[in-house]
């Protein structure tokens, strides 16, 4: 603590020290390599070009959600409403599109561009409500977004009333389920989101403020950062990313219905955390999230390629997440120990 003049010379870290400091980044990467090596060795069908495309497609929807979530977690907040907002936005875009005669949803058909704009506005608005609750009313994000999870699920239920819609605007359909050459559009969109997210976080003032807000909110505020505006923005970014993922997801699945995104909440949070972004904020980034996405993607996909009890898969995923959390907390503790 204060009071003690520290030794003036900065201790030169040994290789081990460096590795320890990088635990957050090294551990997920090592995990990925081990997983790939394992599945490569145990299955012939795993390491093929076709399967790589499978993995990329499988992690795409999670990936777009995870971009927004990375911003939120970097600010040491959480957004539990991502999957619900994705679901609601997907349903909204289908609700404003002409459906097949067999679908009995009392919907309002609009031109494709209008439906997309309304859907984007919807997820933006839901994010804005999250932001308002968090920064103006002061509801912790954990609780605020839990409420939003329910609200968005309610919107889904009201719009489709237990039915299933199938048709989405052409643009959404193309981006969600078509390919350009061998590469699915949804993979390209995800890559773009990750790239833009990375650029924003690393090279812009806003990105810097996100890290600063997460690193030390008080110091950021006393340095003139508008912490409220930063927090509001990340909640809205998260909701809009979820919304886009929701629209493309509906096209990808071929249908819009209730609860079809439920597994994506855990998946996207896992991707960010497994990748090594600190739950305490300020450390990590899109690079980590990409590794996290691949760890989850390879794991999910690889388990299908080896002979394993499919019910055991769920347990394995849970254990992997637990290990990631342990590393996350442990990495943080090692860092704070150096504050000494």
């Amino acid at each position: 603590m204060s009071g003690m003049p520290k030794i003036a010379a900065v201790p030169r870290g040994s290789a081990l020290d460096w590795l320890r400091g990088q635990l957050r980044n090294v551990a997920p990467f090592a995990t990925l390599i081990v997983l790939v090596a394992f599945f490569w060795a145990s299955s012939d069908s795993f390491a093929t070009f076709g399967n790589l495309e499978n993995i990329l497609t499988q992690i795409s929807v999670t990936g777009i959600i995870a971009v927004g979530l990375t911003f939120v977690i970097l600010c040491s907040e959480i957004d539990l409403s991502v999957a619900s907002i994705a679901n609601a936005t997907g349903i909204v875009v289908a609700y404003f599109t002409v459906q097949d005669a067999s679908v009995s949803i009392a919907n309002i058909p609009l031109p494709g561009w209008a439906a997309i704009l309304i859907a984007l506005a919807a997820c933006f608005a839901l994010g804005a409500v999250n932001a308002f609750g968090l920064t103006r009313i002061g509801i912790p994000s954990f609780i605020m977004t839990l409420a939003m999870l329910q609200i968005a699920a309610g919107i889904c239920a009201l719009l489709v009333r237990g039915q299933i819609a199938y048709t989405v605007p052409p643009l959404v359909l193309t981006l969600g389920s078509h390919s350009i050459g061998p590469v699915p559009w949804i993979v390209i969109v995800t890559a773009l989101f990750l790239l833009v997210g990375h650029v924003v976080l690393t090279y812009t003032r806003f990105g810097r403020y996100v890290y600063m807000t997460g690193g030390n909110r008080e110091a950021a505020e006393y340095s003139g950062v508008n912490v409220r505006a930063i927090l509001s923005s990340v909640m809205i970014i998260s909701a809009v990313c979820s919304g886009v993922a929701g629209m493309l997801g509906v096209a990808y699945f071929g249908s819009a219905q209730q609860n079809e995104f439920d597994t994506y909440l855990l998946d996207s949070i896992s991707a960010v955390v497994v990748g090594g972004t600190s739950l305490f904020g300020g450390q990590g980034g899109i690079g980590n999230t990409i590794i996290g996405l691949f760890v989850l993607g390879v794991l999910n996909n690889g388990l299908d390629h080896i002979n394993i009890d499919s019910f055991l898969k769920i347990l394995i995923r849970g254990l992997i997440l637990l290990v990631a959390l342990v590393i996350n907390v442990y990495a943080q503790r090692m860092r704070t120990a150096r504050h000494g």
Partner: protein
Amino acid sequence: MDPLLELVGITKVYPGVTALDDISLCVGRGEVLGLIGENGAGKSTLMKILGGVETPTAGTIRIDGKDHATLNVNESMRAGIGFVHQELNLFDNLDVASNVCIGREPRRFGLVDRKQARARVAPLLERLGADFGPDTAVEGLSIAQQQLVEIAKALSIDARVIIMDEPTSSLTLRETERLLRVIAELREGGVSIIYISHRLGEVKSCANRVVCLRDGRIVGELAGEAISHATMIRLMIGRDLKALYIPPEAEPRQGGCELRGVITPGFPNRPVNLVIRAGEILGLAGLVGSGRTSLARAIFGIDRISTGQILLDGTPVDITSPRQAIRHGMYLVPEDRKRSGLIMEMPVVENITLASLGVYARMLLVNRNSELAASQTQRTRLTIRAPGDQTQVVTLSGGNQQKVVLAKWLSMQPKVVIFDEPTRGVDVGAKNEIYILMRELADRGVAILMISSDMEEVIGVSDRIAVMHEGTISGILERPQFSEYNVLHLAIGQELEMAEAQ
């Protein structure tokens, strides 16, 4: 008087600092011992040792003739030592009886017996003359009433020595009088009290004996009639101050920052009027809790001022957030740099450019090269000893960390800079460098307000000293009037009747 509690040769050494040096004192049965001393004299450390929070490096604690080398919290409680802290440690959400019995709830069939708890607490409250019952919710009580609950808590463990640390710091005059009456009654009842306070008037009216600490040593003791303001102040001061003063290059110039009737939320009805002239270093002295930090927070826009005006170069400015203060060129170097000055895990360069990121950004993107250039310039200018711009701030020494905080503001256009305890936790060499930097800033025409509890620093560095007492400015000293005696005199709220020239 037979001693109830005796300390023999208590020494506490922290790495590099001796906080307590061979302290021996005793408290008799039914005695009120006043403990006085400047900020940082060692009072709190001594009390932490008695409370079992800290272990002494050497020495013996003798209670009822029984020797203890160390105490832990439970032993201290069992030995009959009770505390009434400056910050009250009560659970707002519980009622009085539960608070008094916390951790020792009477039980019946394994469940808390509330009836018995009430029956146990009621007579204690009666003894203290409390006007509330054991069922009252604590959140509805005033600070003074909550203090009575704390005292009842101490009595409920059969405390024979109650240590009161600045018990009156948030009480009104009448509440203080009542507390002093309670103390007198406790004394009659054979309870001993160690009364720690900066308010010498109270010490004088309630203590049988006064012990003064300075720099971790007992420097004197007064008893009975010998206790007076003058004798106590004389004990508290009395060391040679090193010459630190760097004279300004020019007279203070026009402009600066003026506070007109500013009232901070912490001290209603205590308006502050103060002028910080451009080009001067105004020291702000005062005892802990006198409102210096509240004032700094108010000027910097962290807390809103209730009424009053802040003028900058003669024009009133409306400051409701740190962002606005920064926009006006008013900066704060906070007291706790780890908590509110730096982002410890970020590199030096990011910390330096944080507040002025717009300067280094073209369009939306931050230009890394110009950022690094600025960081290098500041590192050279302030001789920040760090391996590089990318070094994490957490690995730097206290002095270098403080310089990074300064670098953040110096790369901008400061008009007013508030330094809150600028050299706390900073080694001697870096201290001087920081003083030189402050003087350079002042000579550039910046108005500097330096809050400091370090008497040497206040007297050595300032051009003028404003002294605060209970939320308001109790006096301003010009350099010829500078003396520890005068500063302390004002700090305890007394008029400066004789200006002692040095």
